[in-house]
């Protein structure tokens, strides 16, 4: 049998769903960020798969940009979490409710 884009998309969807459900149940910020990375990884797989399907390198270029944005966002989010930890000694996002309306 020959492989189609559906096989890769199946993996991609599976990873994304797993990452999203992990993201929704987590209480501490670092684990949420890790599940976010999992979701971004799933999207990257689909990008490269579509690039292979169409035979051009645009998928790779967008992959590069997604990785760049993921790296920047991880670094800044971790810096924010460190600051949150310094203020409150806790990284549970349930406790960060000061701005709650």
């Amino acid at each position, binding site marked *: 049998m*020959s*492989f*189609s*884009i*559906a*096989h*890769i998309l*199946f*993996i991609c*969807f599976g*990873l994304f*769903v*797993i990452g*999203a*459900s*992990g*993201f*929704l*149940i*987590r209480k*501490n910020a*670092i*684990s949420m960020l*890790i*599940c976010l*990375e*999992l979701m971004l*990884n799933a999207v*990257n*797989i689909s990008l*490269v798969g579509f*690039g*292979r*399907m169409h*035979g*051009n*390198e*645009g998928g*790779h*270029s967008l*992959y*590069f*940009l997604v*990785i*760049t944005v*993921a*790296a*920047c*966002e*991880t*670094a*800044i989010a*971790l*810096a924010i*979490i*460190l*600051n949150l930890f310094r203020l409150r000694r806790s*990284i*549970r996002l*349930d406790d960060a409710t000061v701005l709650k309306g």
Partner: protein
Amino acid sequence: MNLQEIAFYILGALLLITGGLVAFRPKPIESALWLIVNFICTSALYVLLGAHFVAVIQVLVYAGAIVVLFTFVIMLLNLNPQELGLTAAVPWTSIVLLTGTVAVIFLCLHVATPDLLKGLPVLAEDAGGWGTLENFSKVFLIKYVWSFEIAGILLLMAVLGVGLLAHHQEKKAV
């Protein structure tokens, strides 16, 4: 069943299993370590697709730098389970709801464009020069050079931002 198909099924199963381990292990350090395994399996999947440069970048940047950052922060914070808010149960409700949503979207797309699942063969044929370093750089650095430069500026801004944010405050803010 040739070697490529076996490899693809094994890698797919590994990806989903390690993804589940990442998302549902209570301690963040275990999540981070399984995330490394997930990224290496993803890199292997890229090699199977013929995207060699992307595979190496996945290990270099994602598994070798971003997850190192996560590991550092987890080790530095060194929180006890009280502060972490551990969850040990697999959230079957969330998984079922999300899978259902995605399946519904997929079915709508299948009805709207009937040949979605009969896509072009992806693995069965040779990639030609696709995915090699030369072809990638020809496209990325000539056609998408503005994106490349903007990515560089974005990284510079992130470095400056992190330097400012993580700088140890000498005087404590009240």
